[in-house]
């Protein structure tokens, strides 16, 4: 498993999840978990994905999703899961 956390934060609009998921599907990136909230009009989503079957390097996926986010007015970040595990799990 090569688990990556994708976070999407920004103003809510139609099709955010669809666009992100389309990119993931095209690049063989498997979604393991999605959670999402809307706080005072702001869209906040977290995805846990597995990149072990994808031939796209993390750096490239990260850059592509960042650009995709810019196109729809949200901030998309990709980070390896270990940083969150380290901080929040003993």
């Amino acid at each position: 498993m090569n688990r990556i956390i994708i976070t999407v934060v920004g103003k809510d609009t139609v099709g955010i999840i669809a666009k992100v998921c389309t990119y993931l599907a095209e690049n063989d990136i498997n979604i393991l978990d999605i959670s999402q909230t809307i706080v005072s009009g702001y869209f906040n989503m977290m995805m846990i994905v597995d990149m072990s079957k994808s031939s796209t390097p993390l750096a490239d996926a990260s850059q592509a999703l960042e650009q995709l986010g810019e196109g729809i007015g949200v901030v998309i970040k990709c980070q390896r899961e270990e940083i969150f595990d380290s901080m929040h799990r003993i």
Partner: protein
Amino acid sequence: MININEVSETNEMIEKENLDVRTITMGISLLDCISSDLETLNKNIYEKIYNSAKDLVKTGDEISRDFGIPIVNKRISVTPIAIIGASACKEPKDFVSIAKTLDKAAKDVGVNLLGGYSALVSKGMTTADKLLIQSIPEALATTDVVCSSVNVGSTKTGINMDAVRLLGDIILETAELTKDNQSAGCMKFVVFCNAPDDNPFMAGAFHGVTEADRIINVGVSGPGVVKTALEKVRGENFEVLCETIKKTAFKVTRVGQLVAKEASDRLGVPFGIVDLSLAPTPAIGDSVADILHEIGVEHAGAPGTTAALALLNDQVKKGGVMASSYVGGLSGAFIPVSEDQGMINAVNAGCLTLEKLEAMTCVCSVGLDMIAIPGDTKATTLAGIIADEMAIGMINQKTTAVRLIPAIGKKVGDIVDFGGLFGYSPVMPVNGFSCDDFVNRGGRIPAPIHSFKN
């Protein structure tokens, strides 16, 4: 599985509270470079540093991108050059040639600072130690990224007062040689008591002779994260306050541990230590003084400040120690003046003096740091200030340091702007009464009674 709130908490620390990894520092032993021929020595040093650290900056940037955490500085520390150059250097300018080699090697691999232009003279000076110390003003004036330090005392050995006296002159000479550039040479020079062998922070980093051939040390930071956490427990008692600092320090340190292990794996260099120091920057919200304010003192320097700093430092260590497999370096809270907006405000408000800072250094990790003083301060007065600070370290079995900047041509109240991470500082007044007869005695102060533990 990680949940959305945990992810948001981490990312808010990074994006809003200035959480970062302050430095990945690669320690490199230069012992195998030693030659009695100066040219060969310089060539060996350049090659060892270049070959060891050529991937350091690239790897640091890749880790930063993969985890989404800024890694601000990539740096190098080397074996104290007084040892490395002892056989080849016959006069100070020979040592300066090594400083220039270090400068070139550091710039070629892309690191922003290199430490280790150093001498360890806590009990006595060899000829080479003395030559290196004499070369410091020119070495710092003719290089950009080389940092220098001299360890003049320890709990085990006492204080070498000959070295302390000499360094009073050396600091003034360094200030004079770099006066057209805000006496910038002095920013790159630290005097130590009980200097650690594995400190990743500049300007005092060097790779001790007790260390392996190469090592990765990491310095984490997060004054803004601690301050934000404390905002949520305003008015609560000391138990709640201390628990909050501890938990926050744990989280911050875990990130440092992760980055250190990752850097070590990717570079194929053993992991040394994580340094737990809370290191401020001039950025708003990245201030240790602001934490002290949040704990409850109006400005740093007000009554209660030393106690507040003591508890902060202790809780940071308690939280951090469990978060990392190896803790070392300086590990505590840094209280530089120019690099901390809250400290600068406290000086401007008339709340913080050199004397109060000295008291605070009894309980914090380092010492009198990044303080601008009048350029006409006497060398003997500088030596007296250094001796006081070294005595605090020696008696309390802790690291203490002095990094003072005599601002040539400036008087009390003038502003000195060092630029970038070094910040700016109002020139602070120095006690003008003489200590000439004290520092001119010569010799050394014997080791304290509690050093005899065998």
